[in-house]
């Protein structure tokens, strides 16, 4: 099967219920969308991520009741450097949605979605540990994989594979 080109035009994606609902809720919160390889991605403004997650969870039709995963990608040296990635699953509808938030290098902070899904606890700690992204409002933001006195954040692209010596 040949790969269909990705759709990145938000106008063409308005027939997706997730995109339509988010736009109807708050047009300013959505900064982009992509439909590629049968997966839908929506970029959300940083200060809107917690209300957006709450909206998606409690929406009567969308019902994204489970946060499956939180991770991060480092695009060093380009800016904005980090992208925090949320994978949502709607168990009643069996559909998935990916939310992304771009973060600048000198301001890698984002609100914790712990008030929406308690499952983000470990995931956000892992992203904090390995990428150094701060989650504001997380009740216990400590290193989870690395020892507590570890220097640096290993999954950053400027961290050498063999570690600092």
């Amino acid at each position, binding site marked *: *099967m040949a790969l269909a080109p990705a759709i990145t035009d938000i106008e063409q994606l308005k027939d997706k219920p997730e995109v339509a609902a988010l736009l109807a809720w708050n047009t300013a919160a959505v900064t982009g969308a992509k439909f590629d390889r049968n997966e839908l991605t929506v970029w959300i403004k940083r200060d809107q991520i917690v209300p957006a997650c709450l909206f998606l969870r409690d929406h009567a039709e969308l019902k994204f*009741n489970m946060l*499956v995963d939180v991770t991060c*990608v480092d695009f060093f040296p380009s800016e904005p450097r980090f992208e925090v990635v949320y994978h949502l699953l709607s*168990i009643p509808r069996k559909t998935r949605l990916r939310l992304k938030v771009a973060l600048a290098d000198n301001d890698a902070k984002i609100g914790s979605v712990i008030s929406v*899904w308690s499952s983000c606890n470990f995931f956000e700690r892992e992203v904090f540990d390995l990428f150094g992204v701060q989650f504001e409002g997380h009740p216990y933001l400590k290193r989870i*994989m690395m020892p507590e006195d570890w220097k640096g954040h290993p*999954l950053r692209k400027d*961290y050498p*594979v063999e570690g600092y010596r």
Partner: protein
Amino acid sequence: MALTQTPALEPGADRTMILNMGPQHPSTHGVLRLVVEIDGETIVRIMPDIGYLHTGIEKTCEAKFYQQVVPLTDRIDYLCPMTNNLTYCLAVEKLLGLEIPPRAQWIRVMMNEITRINSHLVWLGTHALDIGAMSVFLYCFREREDVLRLFEAVAGQRMMTSYFRIGGLALDLPLDFLQRVKAFADRFPSNVDEYESLLTNNPIWINRLKGVAKISAEDAIALGTTGPTLRASGVDIDLRRDAPYTGYENFKFKVPVGKEGDVYERYLLRVQELRESIGIVKQALEGMPAGRIKADAPKVVLPDRENMKTQMESLIYHFKIITEGFTVPAGEVYQAVESPRGEMGYYIVSDGTAKPYRVHMRSPSFANLQALPAMCEGRLIADVVAAIGSIDIVLGDVDR
């Protein structure tokens, strides 16, 4: 629900004491450390401390070619190596847009289900051992030996199989392999009866497990639990049925769903899954198609050894793939698979080069472990071991 983990475990009032459990503890199934605050025999707080087995696999992946990552994935969850191989290969194949021939898909389904049996057997044996039923362990490992021999026959390795490759399989099945699987599949249901006769109606087993470590469906969903742990609480989701991959839509099987959400329910569910898995293996045996085991994509899939001896192109492609890898179109995918423990997901970002830009493993054990405090707090310390066993964590999978 309230967040169960609280900052800084301090021995506050005189009544409570802090108990350190692990990381070297036989019933934590690896190197899990639990900091437990107890009031007499009742748990006030419990806090998992993980990371003892962190090997930085995600970082290592960024320095490897796509095909070199496959052997790393075995090491994440070493009880279901083929499921890890499968998830990674499916994710890369999705990035590439590769079509896999039917025979490879059927073999993948069959081996994946045998892997599930392997994983559940280790779980059942060690879980029963934790509770104090020594003999079940011996029976389970007897059958596990059969499964490992099958792995060895097909991949040359008993645990780290790396049998699934991007675009298909490493090798075709050995000559008498299907007969061996058939003999195993015919024998195995009576073995499951044997385990059940030892446990299911055993009053000690029931008293020890019933009503222990209960979790409601809402809490289980909010905490991100997946797999049998979630289904035992009454949530009907199984990715094999709801989001079929690698040809699972061609197979008929039941998804057992419980309602109590306690340890006993999780036990019953996994035993039923053993029976369903052997059913899928039998269906795969009956309908096994003939044909190729690798996709028709010479730039991605290694050529056959025989062709390399006679065809120049095959030799060139082999040399190119080994030395330079193959490029993958830019993009990102998240591929989720129903592993024995729950949803195993690989999130891969490609920047169009021969090495993955980012590989993230969403491991089921890591997420399921978060449910442990909700299961244990306010209950007896003696039930912690039962609770850990029932969520079926593998510490390689937790720490990656």
